[in-house]
């Protein structure tokens, strides 16, 4: 055990004694969620290629607990939207988001997903936050894998500190209602 190279996540703050460790449920659930975020890649252009590099051995997103890429929205926690989303694709993206089970998070990777990028034109959605709520924006055109990893790590911080009650709070319901999502 001592010569192993495996890094473990530090335990949350709490009270430990002989045979027991006491902490808050929030911290434990947050820790578990943050370190097992299953990504759902929604890749439409070059940012998707950068994400492939991020998932591959060199950058290895699996180190952060995202080993299992879910290509079904039902089992995914983290929707990564990478690339230009045309207005015609907006409803499809929204449907994918609606199919995800709570809790769910969204990262907008790259300039196009965040703001429409250079495609300031009639056919392109000017940022995915026009149709679904976004937690983390990763800038870049396209962003390097380091930036995507940084975005995922920032999302992990959000997930760790999120209250287990947040998803049933009136503020959250209001947020979803503002996007007209049931």
């Amino acid at each position, binding site marked *: 055990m001592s010569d192993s190279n495996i890094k473990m996540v530090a335990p949350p703050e709490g009270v430990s004694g002989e045979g027991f460790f006491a902490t808050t449920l929030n911290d434990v659930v947050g820790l578990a969620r943050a370190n097992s975020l299953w990504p759902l890649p929604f890749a439409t252009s070059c940012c998707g290629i950068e994400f492939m590099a991020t998932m591959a051995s060199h950058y290895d997103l699996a180190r952060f607990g995202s080993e299992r890429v879910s290509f079904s929205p039902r089992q995914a926690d983290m929707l990564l939207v990478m690339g230009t989303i*045309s*207005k015609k694709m907006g409803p499809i993206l929204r449907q994918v988001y609606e199919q995800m089970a709570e809790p769910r998070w969204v990262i907008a990777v790259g300039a196009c997903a965040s703001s429409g990028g250079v495609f300031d034109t009639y056919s392109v959605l000017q940022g995915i936050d026009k149709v679904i709520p976004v937690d983390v924006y990763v800038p870049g055109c396209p962003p390097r894998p380091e930036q995507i990893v940084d975005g995922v790590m920032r999302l992990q911080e959000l997930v760790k500190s999120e209250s287990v009650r947040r998803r049933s709070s009136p503020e959250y319901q209001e947020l979803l209602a503002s996007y007209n999502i049931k």
Partner: protein
Amino acid sequence: MSLESTTVQDKLVETFGESVFQFNQEKDVFSFEVAADKITAVVLFLKNDPTLRFHFLTDICGVHYPDNAVERQFAVVYHMHNWYENKRIKIKAFINGETPEIKSLTTIFPGANWMERETYDFYGIIFTGHPQLKRILNMDEMVSHPMRKEFPMEDGGRTDKDDRFFGRTAFNG
């Protein structure tokens, strides 16, 4: 042996007279104009004539000329290709800017179906006789035709644009 532009011109003028005009060589493509109401007859003739044999419709697209007289504000451009002689031609048909309508080629070339839908989508040109004239590339909810010149270049829904960073204000303060 090869099919000469003059042969094409002579045969067309002989058959259609005044309805085909403005013959000219634009770069390496022989081009001419056709009266819009004769377009199906001319294309059918070009396709079936045993010497012309323009049996392939390469493309259909539109052009908007808002500065032209009303009856010439839209043009539909047809590109045809004779594979036997490797000869290409371009046909332009001008139509009215207020009621842009032209006959569909779908009965002559089934491949015209999607090209005409695209032209309708972007210019609002109505192809009469088309079996399913609806938008093909843009979203169905769209009401405008974005390749028309009066359509704004930039998306009005954009909120992150600060004019100061685009040199559009007098003061960059």
